[in-house]
């Protein structure tokens, strides 16, 4: 039982990173720290998806190494058990690019916030907003 639980270390890492990211987003007061937490959260989800595609027992990267021309006219037999599942990889390729775009927009908003309030701490910004009534 313990061995079974410990053998899923990918998923344990995923769960711990998810908690760290969530804590940084909720518990930290600095806006850049919140953004770092969001980045950690996103890559934890990506780690989860990649872990789904892993097969144990001699599976390799999903690249066909046989000679395609030599088998011309014959049927090429590919055993799916020899390769990792490539579908989650392709989905997560998009997710990484989207996450960088999200980070870029968030940093632009962050610079605007700094120009207006001259601080990046959440509590100070709230205090200024309360004092000025805006």
């Amino acid at each position, binding site marked *: 039982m313990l061995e079974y639980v410990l053998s899923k*270390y*990918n998923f*344990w*890492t995923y769960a*711990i*990173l998810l908690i*760290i*990211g969530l*804590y*940084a987003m909720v518990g*930290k*007061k*600095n806006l*850049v*720290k919140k*953004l*770092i*937490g969001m*980045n*950690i959260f996103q*890559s934890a989800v*990506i*780690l989860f998806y*990649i*872990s789904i*595609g*892993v097969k*144990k027992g001699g*599976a*390799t*990267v*999903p690249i066909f190494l046989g000679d395609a021309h030599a088998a011309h006219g014959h049927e090429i037999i590919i055993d799916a058990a020899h390769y*990792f599942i490539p579908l*989650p*990889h*392709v989905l*997560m*390729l998009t997710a*990484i*690019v989207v*996450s*960088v775009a999200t*980070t*870029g927009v968030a*940093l632009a908003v*962050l*610079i605007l916030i*700094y120009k207006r309030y001259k*601080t*990046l*701490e959440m509590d100070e910004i709230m205090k200024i907003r309360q004092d000025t009534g805006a």
Partner: protein
Amino acid sequence: MIWQLDVIFCLFVIICAIAAINVKDLLAAVIILGAYSFFMCILWTEMGAVDVAFTEASVGAGVGTVLFIAAVNKTKRRSKD
């Protein structure tokens, strides 16, 4: 997949994540986040997701860190927590 190596890199990733959210200096936090991204990309190469790994290395760790450093340079470097 070598499971000993995998466990070590999982531990490195967790340590980097904890360090990145606990460091007071924001520039240091951003650089540690870059290191985190590179460890993550080693982990994905180990898991056979080569395409995801090199996209993460170039886009996630490279461009992301540059954007972060530019933003920290334009704002304040010190953080209270």
